């Protein structure tokens, strides 16, 4: 079965660049690009939702369907 990739939506209007999502991602999917977070390696994402759960600023959404 082919792995379906999620869509990671990052709202740059809300992101304050706190690094929490980057540090707590177990698969190193995200990186800081300038002030904001951006997706580095979407293929590695295991949809654990840790980034969405821990983002204090409502800036990340992981859409899995």
């Amino acid at each position: 079965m082919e792995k379906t990739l999620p869509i990671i939506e990052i709202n740059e209007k809300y992101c304050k660049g706190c690094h929490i999502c980057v540090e707590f991602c177990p698969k190193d999917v995200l990186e800081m690009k300038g002030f904001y977070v951006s997706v580095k390696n979407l293929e590695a994402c295991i949809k654990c939702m840790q980034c969405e759960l821990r983002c204090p600023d409502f800036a990340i959404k992981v859409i899995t369907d």
Partner: protein
Amino acid sequence: MAFEYEKWLRPGKLPHIWCPGCGHGIVMKGLIRAMDTLKLKKEETAILSGIGCASRLPGYIDCCTLHTAHGRAAAFATGLKMARPEMNVILVGGDGDGTAIGGNHFIHACRRNIDMTYIIMNNYIYGMTGGQFSPCTPTGHKASTTPYGNPDPCFDIVELAKGAGATFVARGTAFHANQIDKLIVEAVQHKGFSVVEILDDCPTTYGRRNKFKSVVEMMNRLKEIAVPVKAAEKMTAEQLQGKVLTGVLYKDVTKPEYTAEYAKVIERAKASK
């Protein structure tokens, strides 16, 4: 699937005022998930707060909200609950708001065992006013008013609430984000005064004065010091040195609830006429 926080948020209010990495946003998300799990109605739910960083929270949530005087959230909430006992009343605030300036209202709300939930976000400091030490600043730690270390012993909010008569006391941390909503759900369902202390981080006024290099380091410290209450049963006193217990720490269902008792007073007064 991503959780739809938008349906509980007032449109146009984000981004919020909290600093980068502040745990209050994580607690707010936990509260929203809890309210969604409980299927609370917006018109039957009231969130009240005093003054402070954490007390800005009701401004973002779309339900009945009241932003009151410093430390007086419990006093206003008592009035609201007495007048409208069917409302779900949730209080939010910080450690300074709840235990220093509002300490009196807090202990008396605990004593009365009135049916409401108090979420105290303990970030060890007065964040909004410039980083003064609060009753929860650990001994020896630095604040803007204690640059050589805080000489005061600090409050244990859990023990304070238990001693004052609260019937449900729990503790979580901003690191254990998926536990926050579970604790709040249980607290709101409890009939009586329930206190949920969430240990939080304040990178701007507390972290930078106490040699925390980053928000992530502060979060990892919360991870290190937290011990679930069941795991603590198997640990020795030595191993528990410097740790804090998390989870539901106290629950008493035998103590009568205040608004129910007051309804009996009303009945007695009517019968005596």
